[in-house]
């Protein structure tokens, strides 16, 4: 019996509703919705506004906050999606960038079509929804930085760094909005997260953040770090001087992360610059941290003797922040790319926090139920992804502070971190 040839039928793929893929032909026509949101202005907030709103919380204000977040998030997402849409086609088609574009589009569609919140129960569901989106986007930082670095030959370095910076600042702002609201909901419900100081915080903001304590905490964590062989290491001493009891209102993570990253670098380069002869432990010069309580800002200066910038590939400290390989060759080093790829594919991604860089034992969290978490944490603490400095700068600039590095070539590096302390500065997002 001769096999019959089945007639092949061709038909255009049907457009699927709501969560249509960005690769569908209809994606172009669905952009109308995006443009509607992109044409709205974002409302940047100040720390004071976030605190003020969060005090005297009640159910009515909480619902108000929920709907504010619900309507503001898609606007901020839309602006960044528009940014991506103006980039060269070849850049956004690049595997990693495309993945982020897809994630953003999906988040946009789902937040804009989320129904209004009227009750506490609605809000609980909304908080769950927010948490899901936050988790889904855990890998955005390494994915985006990998994608942009790989596309850097198609993009002028200034443009690349500007777009990436805008994406990352906006990301922080959306996370602040979402996490602050979730925290406010939890505190109203009496569900305080374990270990928080009840009196001194509003949502995710610490109203009496002790900068000196924060620095000492980071030093403690770093001194416990082990080398690649699992053995302990000799790390330099840290001396803190200046206005040691400086306290101000800030989001703890935004202070802790830059300090952690800067000290991590100082420790690493001090060790590299002072190897020990033979097998005896090295004598390492200390790292000097100066804390200054200025009228409008808090300054933290970290001075190390790690040799400063001696690489011929880096012309000035500002190149360290660049994701373009034209300004910073290390962006395309093969071990860097491999590490980023691995980080991007991890479920927990890389969220630019201190917590994720610690081995689980330090958390005191006994759950080790998930496979690979321990390896993940070890890996996270050791691989040099090159995002510590750019992210630190972005955290610092988020409420219009700054991070400035000056090298005394051959001797060491001075890092100047400045954070506004009055809470009056607005978020540095593109409206």
């Amino acid at each position, binding site marked *: 019996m001769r096999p019959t040839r089945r007639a092949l039928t061709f038909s255009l793929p049907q457009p699927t509703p709501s969560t249509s893929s960005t690769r569908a032909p209809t994606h172009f026509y669905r952009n109308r919705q995006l443009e509607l949101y992109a044409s709205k202005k974002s409302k940047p907030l100040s720390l004071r506004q976030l605190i003020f709103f969060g005090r005297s919380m009640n159910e009515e204000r909480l619902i108000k906050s929920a709907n504010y977040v619900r309507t503001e998030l898609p606007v901020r997402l839309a602006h960044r999606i528009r940014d991506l849409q103006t980039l060269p086609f070849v850049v956004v088609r690049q595997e990693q960038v495309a993945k982020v574009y897809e994630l953003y589009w999906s988040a946009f569609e789902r937040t804009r079509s989320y129904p209004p919140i009227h009750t506490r129960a609605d809000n609980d569901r909304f908080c769950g929804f927010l948490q899901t989106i936050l988790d889904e986007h855990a890998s955005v930082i390494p994915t985006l930085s990998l994608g942009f670095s790989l596309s850097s030959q198609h993009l002028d370095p200034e443009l690349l760094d500007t777009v990436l910076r805008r994406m990352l600042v906006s990301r922080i702002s959306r996370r602040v909005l979402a996490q602050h609201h979730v925290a406010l909901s939890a505190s109203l419900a009496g569900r305080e997260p374990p270990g928080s100081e009840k009196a001194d915080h509003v949502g995710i903001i610490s109203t009496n953040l002790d900068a000196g304590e924060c620095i000492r905490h980071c030093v403690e964590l770093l001194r416990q770090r082990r080398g690649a062989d699992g053995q302990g290491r000799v790390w330099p001493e840290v001396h803190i001087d200046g*206005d040691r009891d400086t306290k101000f209102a800030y989001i703890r993570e935004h202070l802790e992360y830059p300090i952690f990253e800067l000290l991590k670098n100082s420790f690493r380069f001090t060790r590299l610059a002072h190897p020990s002869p033979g097998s005896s432990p090295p004598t390492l010069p200390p790292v000097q941290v100066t804390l*200054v*309580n200025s009228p409008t800002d808090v300054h933290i200066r970290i001075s190390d003797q790690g040799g400063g910038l001696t690489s011929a590939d880096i012309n000035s400290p500002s190149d360290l922040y660049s994701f373009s390989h034209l300004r910073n060759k290390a962006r395309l080093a093969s071990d860097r790319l491999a590490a980023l790829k691995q980080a991007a594919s991890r479920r927990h991604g890389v969220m630019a926090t201190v917590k994720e860089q610690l081995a689980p034992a330090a958390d005191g969290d006994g759950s080790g139920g998930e496979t690979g978490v321990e390896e993940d944490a070890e890996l996270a603490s050791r691989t040099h992804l090159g995002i510590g400095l750019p992210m630190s700068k972005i955290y610092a600039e988020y409420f219009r502070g700054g991070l400035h590095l*000056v090298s005394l070539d051959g*001797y060491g590096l001075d890092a100047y971190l400045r954070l506004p302390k009055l809470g009056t500065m607005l978020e540095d997002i593109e409206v």
Partner: protein
Amino acid sequence: MRSLLSRSALLALPARTPYAPAAAAAAPTPTRMALPPAPLRLPSLLDVPHPVTPQYVLHSAALTLSALPPRMAARIRALESLPYIVGVNPFISRLYGIYKDSLDALVREQPVRSLDENEGFVRRLQGLVESHANDIPIMAKGFQECKRYMTPTAVSAFLDSAIRSRIGTRLIGEQHIALSRSLAHHTPGQAGVVQRNCSPKEMIRHCAGFVHELCESTLGVAPGLVVDGMDDATFAYIPTHLEYILTELLKNSYRATAEHWLANASRVPASVLPPSPPPVTVTLSRTRDFLSLRIRDRGGGISPAHLGSIFSYAFTTAAGDEADGGPYALQHVGGQAALDAGPPASASAPAASASTPAAVFSDISSTVIRSGLGTIAGLGYGLPLARLYATYFGGNLELVSLYGHGTDVFVKLRSLERGADVEL
């Protein structure tokens, strides 16, 4: 080595005339003067045989004679391009006259063919250099009076280029003078104006000694000094440049530290106050091509409001600002004594014009720096000038302030034997 401008073209200039605007207009500069100055490059400054030979000195004389006239012409051209009303200002006009005199004198020079002739040439060259000693105070006073006729940007641009050109011109002149002198007594390690084994630590101690005395005598108290890092480093540089940069920066740090400590002394209880002002710390570092240093003080820093103006030239300051801005506020134009026509002011003259600590601090460094660089210190031009000197050979100067605590100044200087092919 002939200059790009022929002697005849330069001679086409009118003979000395009173520098009234009418006369200047009647004698427009010849078109040949539109050519840029003959570029002299750094390597030629360093290509000096050890010990120096008579032939080389004669070669240097020829180099000097060809390099200087076009530079003078360029300065004259720049002055002539200033707005009319600025050119009419007596100080600017005086400067114009000094440059024209210099060009006339140089144009009259015959080629130097023997060491005897060189001696005469060197004497006249020294006179020329001396006649320009007060260029910067004169310019400063002139531009201060012309504040409303030129934008700060335009004045800054003019001053930047005028001072940079002056640095190069002095360098060329001083180089020849130094080489001629060293025929008589050779200094090992010195090649004309460049000292090959310049020790920053020694220079720091030298400058700090002077600044310390000054600070103590005017304010009653002075901080100590700590020098650390690679303090034994040496590099090839021009000692007078290094001396100027260091003195200016140490002056700022010492004064800020003393004043901040004194201000606190009146505010906080004695038990809390440190027994003496905290020291100024200078950290040295050396890489293959550069010598870097960091001057760190605890002088209270600079307020954000003033931070934007510290590198601008002093002419924009109103008289009262000094009190508000603290030690680093733009200093009023000092150096009054230097503005009188005639020979450099004697040591007593600065004291006459100085009454406030600010004025004394402004004026006094001029007496020490005068020997190398003329009266350039003491005008509130300290930081912009220091930066011009630091960047002249491709170095850098950067300032970071922690308001309420102190200031860090970073200076990076190229070691001249790794000479970049820098144009002077």
